[in-house]
């Protein structure tokens, strides 16, 4: 799964000055790009579900074993119930919060770390850069999932905080590498030279000149990190390393699997939470891909007029 690669290659970005209009142009860019629209709509839907789940289902506590076991879909339970007597739809809706929160928190923290490390490496140069880059590459190459599994097994008991922690620790490296590459390419650009000549301090240059030009890459990293978090957290919970008593899509899948839901005709219990994970992940991936297109003109969709010769 190379979803995190979709952030594209680091390269030339827009000149400064455009960043001021960024907020406004961003909305317009989203509206103009179909992929971005779909991704944004999905994200909004999930955010609403996470914020006010009680509006969408009469059930108060989705984890309570309140109803009949393994009921098929009906008006009272649109998706049926689980082997423990829980309303599947209610679980899905309430479970949104945890998945979304994990995604955003991990995405945010991982992005912060990758910005710090990536940009410092680019600016400090020399030995510091060598060390930071080596560390980044090591984290990047070492297969972190088995490591997470091992650590989670030791740390025991499936704590959501532990899950978030290991996800952050293992998810920052890709972004750091990209940011470092871009920061390096920006380092010698003229507008930075002029800031240096004006006598500005390095920290000023980094904060106010470099960072604004890298917002698109930072945003892409956030989205990539969120996607990574959604999928990996679901995976961890699925194999039972999350908090099995909490309410999230991954734990739903875990319980479904332990109750052999597929083989016992409870397909909905398996299909629906996975579908939600897929949709949330897809929303991040679509937004990420769309921003890639927006910031790199070479990738934009080409509308082909009735040309005499079609030459690609």
């Amino acid at each position, binding site marked *: 799964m190379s979803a995190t690669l979709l952030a594209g290659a680091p390269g030339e970005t827009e000149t400064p000055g455009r960043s001021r209009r960024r907020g406004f142009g961003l909305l317009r860019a989203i509206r103009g790009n179909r992929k971005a629209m779909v991704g944004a709509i999905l994200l909004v839907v999930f955010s609403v579900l996470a914020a006010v789940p009680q509006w969408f289902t009469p059930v108060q506590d989705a984890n309570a074993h309140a109803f009949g076991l393994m009921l098929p879909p009906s008006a009272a339970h649109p998706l049926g119930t689980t082997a423990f007597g829980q309303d599947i739809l209610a679980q899905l809706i309430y479970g949104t919060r945890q998945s979304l929160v994990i995604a955003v928190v991990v995405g945010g923290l991982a992005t912060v770390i990758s910005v710090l490390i990536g940009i410092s490496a680019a600016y400090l140069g020399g030995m510091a850069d060598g060390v930071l880059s080596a560390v980044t590459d090591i984290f990047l190459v070492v297969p972190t999932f088995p490591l997470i*599994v091992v650590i989670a097994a030791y740390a025991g008991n499936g704590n959501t905080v532990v899950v978030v922690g290991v996800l952050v620790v293992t998810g920052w490296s890709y972004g750091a590498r990209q940011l470092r590459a871009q920061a390096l390419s920006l380092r010698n650009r003229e507008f930075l030279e002029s800031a240096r000549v004006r006598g500005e301090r390095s920290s000023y240059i980094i904060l106010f000149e470099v960072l604004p030009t890298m917002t698109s890459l930072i945003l892409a990293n956030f989205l990539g990190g969120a996607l990574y978090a959604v999928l990996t957290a679901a995976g961890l919970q699925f194999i039972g390393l999350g908090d099995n008593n909490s309410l999230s899509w991954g734990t739903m899948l875990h319980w479904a699997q332990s109750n052999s839901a597929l083989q016992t005709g409870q397909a909905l219990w398996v299909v629906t939470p996975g579908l939600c994970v897929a949709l949330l992940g897809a929303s991040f991936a679509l937004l990420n891909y769309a921003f890639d297109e927006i910031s790199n003109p070479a990738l934009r969709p080409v509308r082909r007029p009735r040309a005499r010769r079609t030459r690609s």
Partner: protein
Amino acid sequence: MRYLTHRMGFFVLTLWAAVTVNFFIPRLMPGDPASAMMARFHGRVNPAAIHALEVAFGVNSNQSLWSQYISYLHNCLTGNFGISLTYFPLPVSTEIAQALPWTLGLIGVATVLAFVAGTVIGTIAGWRRGSMVDSIVPPVFVVTSALPYFWVGMILILFFSVMTNGALPNDGAYDVTSTPGLTLAFGVDVVRHAVLPAATILITSVGGWILTMRNNMLTVLAEDYVRMARAKGLSNQRIMYQYAARNALLPNLAGFAMSLGFVVAGAILVEYVFNYPGLGYMLLNAVNNLDYPLMQALFLMITVAVLVAVLICDFLTFWLDPRARSRS
């Protein structure tokens, strides 16, 4: 040449880092393996088992930390990872040797296939920019690359195994009733059991390769040397392969190396869903049984596998990119 030595150095460095992390994890984590073992064996702890733990972690209260570390390193290098708690008293290395071929066979082959297929499809999609193929490809594969591996596996099981009453098996690497051996019947059985897991990996990972290759192609196609090739009147095919794809492939290879960590994650989950007896399945079982020696050795083994794959990518890059050859 310098490029290669640099990459080999990285290989060794990363391996050392992984081994060291492995050494320190038990010491840093809450929860003492020994008491976990006591709990598991209900207090009746076998001295050989304790010794297994010691070997696995290098834990030996008689020695200083440094000498523990050295003997641990030595053990790792000689393949002595102690004795597995789950498969007691079989040594860990034996267990791993049994699981390794299954993982290499299924995951390795499926991943390489996905990469090759993805690269080819991505090349064509990038070349035929603006066509029907190209307008469908990105959205579809953006979505498929965001699907959770294990869920896709379960869906495939639902449709092709449960609903077809077992037309394609979903459990294990071969039927428990058949006898392993170099027979055709056995071979067919193995392939039948590999279809669904391999399909899962293909479906979820091919999307990423397609998209990155397509993007690379588009970037390369905007380059001057492609325009130059057109100006020379070269045939489309020649331009697509020798000018565009050859150059677009290079960053893709690097991307492949970087994403292997993610591939491993998916592979572990796929093995779990299909009960496929590879390294990933073994790892998860080990976790459930708190079989620490096995867990740690598996982590190391998986790391080595990934590092070797990365090194192969580095060699390929060296071969394909003349700039890497003269990098100084």
